[in-house]
C-alpha cells in the first residue's frame, strides 16, 4: 500500500495545481446547483406529484415570497429515497397523490407570529425586516382566540384524498372528516389547509369552520350567507393591547 502510494505521489504532485484550479472553477457552479435545488421551485416541480398545487402556489402570495423548502421539510434520508423512487418507480398524478402534505405549525409561525420560536426555517427571498412587517396573526382577535383553543379532530393530512379529489379536475370536499384522536392545540393547517384548499391557496373555507362548529351550520343565516361573510373581519381585527406592544 505504501509502495503504491509512493509511486502515485509524483503524479499527484504534478496534478495538484490543475486539481486545485478545477476546485476553484467548480465552486461557483456547485453554488448555482445548490441555488437551483434549494431555492428554485422549478427543480421540485419537475418531478413532484402535484395537482393544481403548482399553479396555486405560483398565483398565491407565497409564490413570490417563499420557496418550496420554506414549508416542506424532510430528513436527509427522504431525499435519498426520493431520488431512488424517481428512477425506479416515478409516481403519477392523480393516483399516487394520497394525502395533503404535513406542514407543522412552527413553519407558519416563523413568518406569521410575533415571537416565533425559530426563524431559521425561512429560506425565501424576504429579509428579516420584511418578515417583521408581515401582519401577525396572534395580534388579530379571532386568530388569537383560535390559537389558544384545543380540538380532538385529527389533522386533515391523516386522511386519504377521495376519488373526486384525485383526478385532473379535483372537486373540493364538501364535508371534512369528523374522526377524532387525542386532544391537541388548533394549528394553522386546521383552517388553512386540507382537501378543501390544498392548492397552496391558504384562504380558510367555510367547510373548515363547520368541521368544529357543527351545530351552527343548520341555521338559515349560515346556509344563506356562510360563515365568513360576518366573521371574516374579526380574523383581521387587531387586539388593541397586543398591537401597542
Amino acid at each position, binding site marked *: 500500500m505504501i509502495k503504491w502510494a509512493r509511486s502515485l505521489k509524483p503524479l499527484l504532485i504534478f*496534478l495538484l495545481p490543475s486539481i486545485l484550479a478545477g*476546485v476553484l472553477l*467548480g465552486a461557483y457552479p456547485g453554488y448555482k446547483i445548490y441555488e437551483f435545488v434549494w431555492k428554485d421551485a422549478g427543480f421540485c416541480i419537475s418531478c413532484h406529484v402535484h395537482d393544481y398545487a403548482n399553479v396555486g402556489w405560483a398565483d398565491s402570495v407565497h409564490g413570490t415570497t417563499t420557496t418550496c423548502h420554506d414549508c416542506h421539510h424532510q430528513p436527509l434520508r427522504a431525499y435519498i429515497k426520493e431520488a431512488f423512487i424517481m428512477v425506479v418507480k416515478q409516481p403519477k398524478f392523480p393516483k399516487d397523490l394520497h394525502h395533503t402534505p404535513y406542514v407543522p405549525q412552527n413553519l407558519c409561525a416563523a413568518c406569521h407570529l410575533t415571537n416565533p420560536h425559530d426563524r431559521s426555517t425561512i429560506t425565501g427571498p424576504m429579509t428579516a425586516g420584511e418578515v417583521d412587517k408581515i401582519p401577525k396573526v396572534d395580534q388579530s382577535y379571532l386568530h388569537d382566540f383560535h390559537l389558544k383553543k384545543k380540538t380532538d379532530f385529527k389533522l386533515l393530512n391523516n386522511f386519504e384524498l377521495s376519488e373526486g379529489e384525485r383526478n385532473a379536475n379535483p372537486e373540493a370536499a364538501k364535508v371534512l372528516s369528523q374522526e377524532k384522536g387525542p386532544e391537541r392545540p388548533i394549528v394553522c393547517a386546521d383552517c388553512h389547509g386540507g382537501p378543501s384548499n390544498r392548492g397552496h391557496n391558504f384562504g380558510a373555507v367555510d367547510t373548515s369552520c363547520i368541521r368544529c362548529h357543527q351545530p351552527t351550520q343548520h341555521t338559515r343565516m349560515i346556509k344563506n350567507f356562510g360563515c365568513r361573510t360576518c366573521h371574516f373581519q374579526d380574523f383581521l381585527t387587531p387586539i388593541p393591547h397586543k398591537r401597542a406592544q
Partner: protein
Amino acid sequence: MNPFWKLKIDELSPTKRFTLQIAGVLLGFLIGAFLVFQVLFLWRVIPHGGI
C-alpha cells in the same frame, strides 16, 4: 503499458502532460462543485429535517 500510478511524468510527451493537466482540472471541477453543493445542501437540510 504501465498503469497510471506508475507513470513517469518526466518521460511523457508535452501533449500527454497537457492532457493529464486538463483531466486534473476536470476532476477538480467535479470535486469542487460536488463539495460546495453538498456542504450548502446539508447545511440547510440537517438542521430542519435531520438525518
